[in-house]
């Protein structure tokens, strides 16, 4: 401490005042002595002390009352009561009213000094505690300001992405339509001056534009998945899977596919996004079992404490585990376009949606026997949003 600690001694006994003053000043403290409660109040109003040593029996005021009044003037003062054995009860009462300690007469100056030191330490600690609390408060405010700033930046970035996606959608489609349109126009209006190779080139050009259009649409779907707000709630996954299965069946009523969907599967997540996940996984299973005479698709789940593990299994063409790492990449395919159609965006979308929910995706398969796709979703208790 840079400043000398200031001690106020309040006692109507002259000799006690003198003794204490001598001893404390020798230890380097700054001392003021008064004989009455009023004096103590006046001294504190003028310039508050660090420590006040009060005799419990003062001529003009009850010691405990004085204690209360001094603390009202300055809550930081540590107060030590001096009491005789007869008034120990009062001294204990003083402790409950905010006194730091009491010392009994006859005074043992070592005990007095030790008590004063302890009181000063307590004061120092309280000061440091308040300082730390202040610092913590300022840090929290600073953090909140930064979070607000980051959120604003994120929102701005999201809006830019939205505008970009719209631009891609609108502006890229225009010239694409030109290429497709004029290609077809040449094919139709000038087919008589073209040989078969020429007509073939034009057809291939047209196919390419159709494909490009699909790629643009898929890119936009993928970016939409990252941009849109998530509204999580409990979802009946069994019902969702059954609805999607129904749609698949109605699109290809001729196909005979065994669907084993377990009952009572629930998940905590965004319903619209999870619909996309199941649509992609069940759709894939449906597609890759199209060459199997007795196709079988299963959907089930295992509930664990913090997460639920879901799986979609099929007995279709499967894939080579050597390439499993590529499965969830954007536009990455493990099969040729003439075997199975698709752009390779479905699993990338699944992975992104599951990631946003805080889950994991992985797959197992073997060529010719089928594939199983797993994903986890945190339960409501174990929830972590990304």
């Amino acid at each position, binding site marked *: 401490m840079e400043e000398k600690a200031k001690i106020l001694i309040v006692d109507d006994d002259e000799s006690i005042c003198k003794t204490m003053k001598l001893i404390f000043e020798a230890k380097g403290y700054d001392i003021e002595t008064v004989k009455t409660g009023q004096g103590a109040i006046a001294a504190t109003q003028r310039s508050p002390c660090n420590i006040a040593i009060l005799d419990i029996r003062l001529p003009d005021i009850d010691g405990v009352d004085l204690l209360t009044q001094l603390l009202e003037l300055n809550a930081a003062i540590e107060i030590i009561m001096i009491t005789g054995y007869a008034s120990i009860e009062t001294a204990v009462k003083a402790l409950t009213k905010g006194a730091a300690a009491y010392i009994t007469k006859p005074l043992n100056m070592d005990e007095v000094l030790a008590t004063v030191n302890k009181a000063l330490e307590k004061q120092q600690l309280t000061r440091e505690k308040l300082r730390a609390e202040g610092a913590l408060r300022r840090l929290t405010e600073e953090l909140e300001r930064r979070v607000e700033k980051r959120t604003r930046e994120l929102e701005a970035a999201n809006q830019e992405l939205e505008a970009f996606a719209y631009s891609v*959608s609108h502006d890229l489609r225009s010239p694409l339509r030109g290429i*497709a*349109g004029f290609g077809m126009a040449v094919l139709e209006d000038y087919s008589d001056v073209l040989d078969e190779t020429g007509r073939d080139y034009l057809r291939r050009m047209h196919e390419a534009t159709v494909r490009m*259009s699909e790629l643009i649409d898929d890119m936009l779907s993928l970016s939409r998945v990252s941009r849109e707000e998530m509204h999580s709630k409990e979802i009946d996954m069994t019902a969702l899977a059954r609805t999607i299965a129904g749609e698949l069946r109605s699109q290809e009523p001729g196909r005979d596919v065994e669907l084993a969907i377990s009952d009572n599967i629930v998940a905590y997540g965004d319903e619209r996004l999870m619909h996309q996940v199941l649509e992609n996984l069940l759709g894939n299973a449906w597609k890759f079992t199209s060459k199997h005479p007795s196709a079988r698709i299963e959907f089930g789940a295992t509930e664990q404490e913090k997460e639920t593990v879901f799986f979609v299994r099929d007995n279709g063409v499967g894939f080579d585990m050597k390439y499993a790492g590529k499965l969830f990449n954007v536009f990455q395919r493990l099969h040729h376009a003439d075997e199975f159609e698709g752009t390779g965006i479905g699993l990338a979308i699944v992975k992104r949606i599951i990631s946003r929910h805080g889950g994991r995706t992985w797959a197992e398969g073997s060529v010719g026997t089928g594939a199983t796709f797993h994903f986890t979703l945190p339960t409501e208790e174990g929830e972590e949003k990304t």
Partner: protein
Amino acid sequence: MNDGLILLVEDNPDDVILTKRALKDANIANEVILARDGVEALEYLRGEGAHKGRNTSIMPEVILLDIKMPRMGGLEFLKIIRSEESTKLLPVVILTSSKQEKDVVESYSLGANSYIQKPVDFDQFSAAVKKLGLYWLVTNIGPFGGQ
């Protein structure tokens, strides 16, 4: 059927050629007036600028309107014609690349009669234009009692 005029408001020259070709494919031989943006389209309707002196009692049977154009876009043009007596009843079909919900909603709230997205695939585009043409020029009875 061949009497009605079509006002095509489109800035992309490729799309103009393709639209005209589609109309021809559908045997719709009506005259097509071209305006490259909202300003030229207004000049035509009002008989101003390059169309000064035209008989403004003759109005197009239908307006095929793109949204994104320079100077004055489709929606601004639509707002203006819907606020003027002589043009507020004209049938307007929005023909645009965008499928964005906000464009669809805004178009209808400004008074468009129909909204078609231009597909990339030419066959589909052609089929759409053909259906459009047949509907608005043949099936539909226009506000001016058919000319």
